[in-house]
């Protein structure tokens, strides 16, 4: 796996190819790494901002790969919902939205870390320690860091969306970002919350992380309608784009000028829905594509430095927390 000296995370090896998840079975042309891309956005962004955005992606990737290892090693035995492959969306949205209220659902380590939630509290939560972000009660799904305005999640898919509407209703005008999945989008209460936000003109940005999967069921087997059409039908602006981080950042800034609004982001889940496994190759690898773009901007050395630092940070953190756990919890708990 990863260590402090490696230049980047090792590629993921399929663990169990017997149940490969469907990769774009509908041949939907919108599922592409280029969908909606606007040329020149990466070059337009301040270099330091581009690197900071990549740093947030790297933190999620190294952290979640470390969680994967911890599960394989038997150190973390709760359900884990990893965001490997989906790092770009929360990292990009967070570039202009940190400080807003944030709600996410079960696949949320990426959201929590990008919005500056404390990494130690998340590691502790996964390790079942009382110092976890939910006191060890929640495990993987319920991100929670109220000081950073990150509101917890209870594990029921989409439950956070009406709650986000309630937060936006009473936030005194402060912005709210609500992440959810393409599956959650089908919950009646999610749609009702979108309608409510539109009717009330709430300062709420809906971000659908559309990995085309609800557990293992692809969208084509679940519905025919598109979420962006629905949002537009409710009277709010909506875009449907790929998860290029500069593109996501661009639309986040633009859409947040006129809330409520929806961004549907096409993204790829690399690992199992729940657990540490990996079935087959994702449709594209946004993390590597992002590194390529940065290298094209003569930033390869900076990228390597960020990866080395992040890897070391994550490794040190987990080593220390595992040690801590062995001190406070009796063996076998």
């Amino acid at each position, binding site marked *: 796996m990863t260590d402090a000296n490696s230049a980047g995370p090792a590629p993921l090896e399929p663990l169990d190819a017997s149940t490969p998840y469907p990769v774009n079975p509908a041949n939907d042309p919108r599922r592409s790494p280029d969908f909606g891309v606007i040329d020149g956005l990466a070059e337009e962004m301040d270099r330091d901002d581009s690197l900071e955005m990549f740093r947030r992606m790297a933190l999620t990737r190294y952290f979640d790969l470390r969680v994967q290892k911890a599960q394989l090693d038997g150190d973390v035995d709760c359900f884990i919902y990893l965001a490997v492959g989906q790092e770009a969306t929360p990292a990009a949205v967070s570039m202009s939205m940190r400080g807003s209220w944030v709600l996410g659902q079960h696949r949320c380590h990426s959201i929590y870390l990008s919005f500056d939630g404390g990494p130690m509290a998340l590691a502790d939560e996964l390790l079942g320690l009382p110092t976890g972000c*939910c*006191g060890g*009660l*929640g495990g993987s799904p*319920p991100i*929670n860091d*109220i000081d950073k305005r990150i*509101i*917890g999640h*209870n594990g*029921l898919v989409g*439950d956070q*969306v*009406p*709650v*986000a*509407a*309630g*937060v*936006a*209703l*009473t*936030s005194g005008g402060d912005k709210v970002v609500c992440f959810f999945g393409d599956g959650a989008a089908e919950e*009646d*209460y*999610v749609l*009702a*919350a979108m*309608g*409510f936000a539109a*009717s009330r003109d709430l300062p709420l940005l809906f971000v659908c992380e559309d990995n085309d999967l609800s557990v293992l069921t692809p969208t084509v087997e679940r519905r025919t309608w598109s979420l962006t059409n629905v949002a537009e039908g409710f009277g709010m602006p909506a875009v449907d784009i790929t998860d290029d981080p500069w593109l996501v950042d661009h639309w986040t800034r633009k859409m947040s000028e006129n809330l409520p609004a929806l961004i549907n982001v096409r993204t790829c889940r690399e690992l199992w829905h729940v657990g540490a496994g990996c079935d087959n190759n994702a449709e594209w690898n946004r993390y590597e594509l992002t590194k390529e773009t940065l290298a094209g901007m003569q930033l390869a050395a900076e990228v390597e430095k960020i990866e080395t630092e992040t890897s070391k940070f994550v490794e040190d953190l987990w080593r220390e927390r595992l040690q801590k756990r062995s001190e406070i919890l009796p063996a076998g708990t």
Partner: protein
Amino acid sequence: MARTVAETIRDLTRGHIDDGGIVIGQCLTAVGWVQNTIPPQTKGIVELPMTDICGSGIAVGAAIMGKRPIFVMRFQSFLWLNASPLVNYAAKSKEMFGYPAPVFARAIASESDGSGPLHTNCFHSLFMHMPGMRVCAPMTPKEYEAIWADYVAGDDPFMVSEHRRSYKSEIEFEDQIEDGAEITLYAVSAGRFNVEDAAEALREQGIRCNIVHLVWLKPFEVDARVLAPLKASGRGIVIDSAYEIAGASQSIAYDLMLATGCPVKAVGQFDRSPGVAKHLENGTPTAERIVEAATSMIKDG
């Protein structure tokens, strides 16, 4: 001047709005202002679209933000839909996330008058089953003021099981303890109106009985006030407007039996759907039913 329960709720609500609180619900400003329990104004009132489930989620979000929303459900039948955000989010928030979601959920029970299978309903027992919410059924103006003060002083989410039959009432109930009582009647929700008539009828038959009024269902305090009359009378009945099976009446009867060793029966709605037609109604146990249950218990020794 004496006020009704509805007027009490309305006045507390108006004061809450003046203090910056909000009321959330469906059709609040429509005809009747929810049986005169909502102040006739638009300030502080959030009209929801027809969004059960989502609606209570919105209330929970506002509660997390410290708005202390009063969330109104015009019929308890809507609780099945609205329960999830309340029990899975609001009730767990403090324990799991470290910050409370004190929503004041007003759920209105009703019966008779053709309310039929959907709206003959009283479902407070559902919320006793799950941890994290306090559950009460105030039926008098003073009781309502007391539970409101409790809510404001704490940070727990509340399930307030109201009953339409109480709205026009100005009565303040008091426990009735008699020397030589043969049975103690514990009454919950609208059962409290019927139990007075039942006790009257029992006394006419020469049977003395105690009446103990219960406002708090959870936590249910097994204290001297509730235990002493049971120990003295040797048997009891818990009467509730909700279903018996796995309901408040059985749960409370169990606590009382365990604490005293005396037999305690539960009497609630029959285990069948209520109908619109008079002969198919299935509401709060009537005075006749309570009398019958009491006399058969006494006869059986």
